[in-house]
């Protein structure tokens, strides 16, 4: 019997710029140490607009410290973050020599170039149309990050942008898997990016009561599964993979972190923002991913959950996990790394996929922080306090991402 895994997709490079570190090693070290990236914002616009939320998980390393000055001028921050992460991932993969027509790019974003869009709207109102920056449109378009990465690495097999709110980053990984499986590319640079710590998204998320308002203690604000959770913490950054066909990676002797074995996707068709309470849509995404990775549900030992720290969302995800895995739910170690990184929206799925891959590669699941009193409605086996070791041998893990609009994406990672 043939399987869609006949052409396997493996992870050979990782890159990230996040609220807890400017690189993957820095980010992983901070997450194992349980450090929060949330902090009070000192921007003048916070008090100017009297924002109800005065903190966020801001990027740890400023792009101007990494990129050329002209790159920071001509690229929206969302593209800058993607470029930083893509260059790190590419170098991490050994900067392989490859036919450009066999190299693709797939970078998702939830919101796109919101800073450019609104800054340039201000320029138009205050100074007139002639002063609007000629690069405004390519900077604000949501495919800008994918285009920037494609241009930088010379990726000519295709440059693609998945847009599915907070599932965008995970969906781009799924898109990249499909590009490799269907033979359109041998190597794809894939991930997600978001630069939306801007007064408008903050005001919008706050208006819908989605954000934590724990202004007096930002580091304790993102607390998935805790009874005191009151919303998510807005984060920013990017995470990017080098994904490669197993055949191509082996032929060049590449270091392989893990197999990105499958993606499972579904849509709730239930409500524009609320998750389906019984979790049927999300559970289908998880089970599709398990099946397409040639696994049984009992093979999954670990889930890096979407778990944003909202009162409703964390329960809905638990219901979905329970629905998919039944009694096996208790056997899986679950972690919610947004407790440290905040919620990177369109980059979240890619960042948490990086963490899942490293958890499988190092056989170490990082602990969830701020979990003082676990919600009795969410009786998951959550890793807390100390990180937890995963067993030797063949292991598999899932990473969940869900987005406004009812988008459900689960990625399956198998040890290699």
């Amino acid at each position, binding site marked *: 019997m043939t399987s869609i895994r006949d052409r396997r997709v493996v992870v050979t490079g990782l890159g990230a710029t996040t609220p807890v570190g400017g690189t993957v090693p820095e980010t992983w070290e901070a997450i194992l140490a349980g450090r929060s990236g949330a902090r009070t914002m000192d921007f003048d616009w916070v008090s100017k607009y009297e924002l109800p939320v005065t903190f966020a998980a801001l990027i740890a390393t400023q792009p101007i410290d990494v990129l050329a000055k002209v790159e920071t*001028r001509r690229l929206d921050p969302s593209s800058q973050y993607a470029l930083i992460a893509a260059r790190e991932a590419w170098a991490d993969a050994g900067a392989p020599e490859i036919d450009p027509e066999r190299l693709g790019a797939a970078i998702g974003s939830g919101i796109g170039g919101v800073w450019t869009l609104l800054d340039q709207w201000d320029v138009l109102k205050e100074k007139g149309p002639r002063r609007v920056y*000629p690069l405004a449109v390519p900077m604000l378009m949501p495919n800008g990050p994918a285009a920037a990465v494609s241009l930088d690495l010379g990726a000519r097999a295709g440059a693609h942008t998945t847009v599915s709110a907070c599932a965008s980053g995970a969906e781009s990984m799924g898109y990249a898997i499909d590009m490799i499986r269907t033979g359109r590319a041998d190597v794809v640079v894939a991930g997600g990016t978001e630069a939306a710590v801007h007064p408008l998204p903050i005001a919008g998320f706050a208006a819908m009561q989605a954000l934590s308002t724990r202004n007096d203690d930002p580091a304790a604000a993102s607390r998935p599964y805790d009874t005191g959770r009151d919303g998510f913490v807005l984060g920013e950054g990017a995470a990017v993979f080098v994904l490669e066909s197993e055949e191509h990676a082996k032929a060049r002797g590449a270091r392989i972190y893990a197999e990105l074995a499958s993606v499972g996707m579904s849509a709730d068709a239930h409500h524009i923002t609320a998750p389906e309470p019984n979790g049927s849509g999300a559970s289908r995404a998880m089970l599709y991913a398990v099946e397409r990775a040639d696994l049984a549900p009992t093979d999954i030992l670990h889930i890096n959950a979407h778990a944003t720290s909202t009162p409703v969302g964390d329960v809905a995800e638990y219901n979905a996990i329970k629905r998919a895995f039944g009694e096996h739910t208790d056997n899986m170690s679950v972690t919610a790394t947004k407790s440290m990184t905040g919620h990177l929206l369109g980059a979240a799925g890619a960042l948490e996929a990086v963490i899942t891959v490293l958890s499988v590669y190092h056989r170490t699941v990082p602990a969830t922080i701020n979990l003082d009193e676990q919600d009795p409605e969410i009786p998951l086996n959550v890793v807390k306090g100390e990180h937890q070791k995963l067993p030797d041998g063949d292991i598999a893990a899932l990473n969940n991402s869900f987005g406004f609009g009812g988008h459900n994406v689960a990625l399956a990672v198998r040890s290699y």
Partner: protein
Amino acid sequence: MAQSEQEILDGLAEIVNEETGIDTASVEMDKSFTEDLDIDSLSMMTIVVNAEEKFGVRIPDSEVKNLKTVRDAVTFISGAQA
């Protein structure tokens, strides 16, 4: 107030550097914006608009295509300031 051609050249070089990253010393009078400095039309429009603000002149869109070299731009700005 009119500036000397050298002052205009120096100011223009700063604008070019800011927008494109090209070293200010490379922005010489006889260099062509497109052929020598590899400046594309989008960057050229930004340079023009920034130059208008910096030098207090108006450079009509119809004039931009005539500004082939750095000297063309310096001469136009100098004339417009007079």
